[in-house]
């Protein structure tokens, strides 16, 4: 039929070359390595943080310590019930544990970074203010005055 193929050999579809597949995979891998950071600890309390519009980004992750507040979830529910609890690092803690925790976090940082340390308060929106105020009082006593009320960006539709 084709004059370029006078022998009339059966045409076969050439195999797709897989030589570049590793390169594609490595590209994806580097993308993930650059754009993500390691998970620090598993959060075992509910975390439906409130929405807000006037939010700022937490710039330096290494300067941030976290306090999680919410009701226990998953396996922790059976252990601690459904009352609001505070989680520091991986442990469910009491309000009294905050001050030692802050001091520990303070000591972990290099001296020049210490004044810039920020505490991110990640509290569930259903949390009562009583416990939040206790935490705030403890933070003030521990002289961790820079805090960040964790909130998600609220999308405001402009009509």
């Amino acid at each position, binding site marked *: 039929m084709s004059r370029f193929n006078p022998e009339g050999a059966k045409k076969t579809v050439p195999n797709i070359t897989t030589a570049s597949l590793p390169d594609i995979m490595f590209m994806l891998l580097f993308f993930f390595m650059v754009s*993500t950071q390691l*998970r620090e600890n598993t959060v075992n309390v509910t975390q439906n943080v409130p929405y*807000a519009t006037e939010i*700022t980004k937490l710039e330096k992750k290494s300067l941030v310590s976290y306090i999680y507040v919410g009701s226990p979830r998953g396996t922790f529910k059976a252990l601690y019930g459904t009352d609001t609890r505070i989680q520091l690092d991986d442990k469910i803690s009491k309000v009294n544990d905050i001050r030692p925790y802050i001091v520990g976090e303070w000591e972990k940082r290099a001296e020049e970074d210490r004044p810039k340390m920020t505490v991110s308060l990640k509290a569930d929106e259903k949390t*009562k203010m009583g416990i939040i105020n206790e935490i705030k009082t403890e933070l003030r006593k521990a*002289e961790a005055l*820079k805090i*960040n009320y964790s909130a998600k960006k609220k999308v405001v539709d402009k009509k």
Partner: protein
Amino acid sequence: MARKKRAFPEIPNASQADIAFLLIIFFIVSTTMDTDTGIYRVLPQWVENVEAPKINKRNTFVVLINKNNDLAINGQFAQISDIKDRLKEFILNPNNDPNLSEKKEENIEGLGLITRSQGIVSLQNDRGTDYGAYIEVQNELVKGFNELRDEFSMDRYGRKYEKLTPEEQELAKKAVPTAISEAEPQEVK
């Protein structure tokens, strides 16, 4: 004994893609992508047995949230959407209303003589107030102050606060301080 030189076998690279793929999966599982955002505030220093400073009543803007998440401004029920405009009116006090905040001429280094409001927002809440409601109010207050700062920057530098240099931002912060005082929670009806 001329033995034929053995050809060095090539390492098969067919599995290279699979290895990379495994690594990708490992990174997806063990990392997070979410950036942390939130409302930034600086808490006041802790002082034992401090006596509440006497502030003229006209200089306070009391926002109260009770345990049912109802809102009151200076003792009257209000809506969340009202806060921002009421706050701006309170701070700017365009008609020099004797019930709204007092304004004083102040000399700030780098800015010269400017009129600054003496008004302070007092945010009060009950132990039973929801954190979500509290953040919503906090957000509105911060939004009000941010808009005031924007207006000041527009007046002074002809640019919005965001576009100012860091030094100018510091000065704008001094001219329009975020004056929110948070009282200890109390039982409110």
